[in-house]
């Protein structure tokens, strides 16, 4: 009697485990193979209004990180926007108030720009190739999931 009762309990558990594993595998398969899609290719960095005044008041404001990471076919356009009232050296160029600068990348490489906004005078843009189906695509989705920024 006891054996029959245990078997009856184990069977649904096993079915649930198999179902869960299949779902997980299907999810992994989708994440590894499904095409990557993004709403916009722009990677936006913005100088907020009042930045110059705040800097003049002694505040330390870093807007551009020293290294920017982009991916071909996904976020492969560096979009810099100056919403301040004065011109700013922003990344590789001087941008006027209210103006934006949109720089597309088509080749995976590491680009180095002189940028006086940084203490070391350099801005690095690392452009990764479009993630290939399989492990790379899975990694990309995982990174996106764990670090949406």
């Amino acid at each position, binding site marked *: 009697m006891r054996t029959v009762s245990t078997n009856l309990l184990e069977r649904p558990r096993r079915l649930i485990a198999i179902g869960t594993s299949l779902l997980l595998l299907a999810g992994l398969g989708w994440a590894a193979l499904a095409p990557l899609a993004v709403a916009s290719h722009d990677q936006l960095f913005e100088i907020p209004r009042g930045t110059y005044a705040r800097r003049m008041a002694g505040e330390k404001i870093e807007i551009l990180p020293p290294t920017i990471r982009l991916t071909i076919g996904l976020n492969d356009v560096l979009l810099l926007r100056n919403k301040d009232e004065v011109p700013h050296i922003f990344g590789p160029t*001087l941008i006027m108030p209210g103006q934006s600068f949109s720089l*597309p990348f*088509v080749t995976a490489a590491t680009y180095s720009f002189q940028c006086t906004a940084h203490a070391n005078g350099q801005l690095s843009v690392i452009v990764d190739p479009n993630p290939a189906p399989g492990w790379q695509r899975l990694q990309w989705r995982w990174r996106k999931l764990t670090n949406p920024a």
Partner: protein
Amino acid sequence: MTAGVFNPPHLAPDFSLAGSDGSDITLARYRGKVVLLTFGFTHCAAVCPTTLATLAQARSGLGKAGDKVQVVYVTVDPARDDAAHMRDYLAAFDPSFIGATGTPDALAVVRRQYGVTAVREETGADYAIAHTSSIFLIDRAGKLRALMPFGHQAADFVHDVRLLLAA
């Protein structure tokens, strides 16, 4: 465009410098042409020769439309780059290229207006200057439309200049 694009475009800051052809160089003089504006120095070992060779190749690749393109090369090294020396240097790439020089103060003003940096790296007679290596694309109406970072091929310039000429 393959270059980085300014939106909205503003009038490119004009200047008046001594031209390698003996005349005064202003951007206003080239209205109706696309101006490819770049900064450098004739003793530059790698960046400037590459840029100028690429621009010469691009101008040639444009065929007849190349006549509607003017390359302006502003020196960051007025101590060594006088007008005559720049003319001879640029002629080796393309005789139509124009060099521009002036007083250190006048050149510094132009650099500031374009966000261009130039830092002397060594002392002694054979000094080098680390400088902004991008190329500014100015349309036929004199508006600063785009900036091409160093390293692009001549075909990219041909593509973008054609777009500016067609606009």
